[in-house]
C-alpha cells in the first residue's frame, strides 16, 4: 500500500479499526505514516480536552432557561388539565347519550308489550 492511501484511512484507523490489516501492517513499518498517526492521536487528545473547556454562557442564560422551562411546563400542565376536562366532558356526553338510548329502548319495549296485551 502507498503512504497516501494509508494516510487517507488514518482518521478511521486510529479509532481501532482492526479490519484493515494491510494498512495497519504498513503503519507498523513506515515511519512517515507512524508520525502521521501520532498527529491524529494528538488531535484526539486535544479534542478530549475540549470537553472540560466550558464556554461561559451569557450570565442571564441560566435564568432565561429556568424561566422558559417553567413557563413551558406550566403550559403543558394547563394543556393536560384542559385535555383532561375535554375527556371528562366527552365521557359525560357519551354517558348521557347511552343512558338516553337505554331509556328509549326500554320505553319502546314496554309500549310494544302493552300493545300486545291490549290486542
Amino acid at each position, binding site marked *: 500500500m502507498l503512504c497516501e492511501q494509508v494516510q487517507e484511512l488514518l482518521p478511521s484507523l486510529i479509532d481501532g479499526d482492526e479490519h484493515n490489516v494491510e494498512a495497519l501492517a504498513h503503519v507498523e513499518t513506515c515511519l512517515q505514516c507512524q508520525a*502521521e498517526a501520532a498527529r491524529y492521536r494528538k488531535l484526539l487528545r486535544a479534542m478530549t480536552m475540549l470537553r472540560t473547556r466550558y464556554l461561559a*454562557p451569557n450570565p442571564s442564560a441560566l435564568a432565561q432557561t429556568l424561566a422558559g422551562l417553567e413557563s413551558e411546563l406550566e403550559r403543558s400542565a394547563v394543556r393536560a388539565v384542559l385535555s383532561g376536562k375535554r375527556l371528562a366532558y366527552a365521557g359525560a356526553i357519551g354517558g348521557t347519550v347511552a343512558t338516553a338510548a337505554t331509556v328509549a329502548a326500554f320505553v319502546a319495549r314496554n309500549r310494544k308489550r302493552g300493545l300486545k296485551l291490549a290486542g
Partner: protein
Amino acid sequence: MVDERELVEAAQRGDRPAFEELVRQTFSDTYTLAYRLTGNEEDARDVAQEAYLRAWKGIGKFRGDAQFSTWMYRITANAAATFTKKRKRQRTESIDDIGEPAESRYDYQPAAMSEAADLLDRLSVAVDELPPKLRQVVVLRDVYGLGHEAIAQELDITETAAKVRLHRARHKLREVLDLPGEQRSGASAHAV
C-alpha cells in the same frame, strides 16, 4: 451541593425544584455541548432549554446506570439535530453549503498562550467552522465520547453515515495541527 442521584430520584417523583437544581448543576456542560453543536449562542440557549424540557418529560425513563450529564448529552444531541433540521427547512438551503464560518468566541493571542492552550483555541475555532453535519458527529464522538451507535440514533442517521462524517471531520481538523514548524511531510508516497 446535593448529590446528583438524590436530585434525580426526587425529580423522578415530580419534585420540580430538585430538577431545577439539576439544571443549575449541569447547565455549563449542556450549554457548552449545545453551543458546539449549533455554533452560536442564541441557538445554543434554545437547544439547551428544549433538552431540559425533554429531560423533565423523560426523567422517569432515566435508569441511572449512566451519569445524568451523559444522559443529557444524548438528549442535547437529539434536540440539536431536530433544531438543525427545522432550521434547514426554514432556510431551504443545505447546511453543508453554508460557507460562513461561525463567529469565533476567542480572542486569538498566540504570543500570550502556551502551545497547548493555543492548540485548543485553534481547534475550537476549527470545530466551529466545520459544516454542521460533520461538527455534530465529531463533537459527540471525540469530545463527549459517545459511541457510533448512540450518535447515529440521536442524529437519526445510519452508523455508516456517522463513521463517514467522523472520518471527514477528523481529516479537516488534522490541518489545525499543521503549525509552521510541523508541516505535513508532503505526499511523497512510497510503497512498503
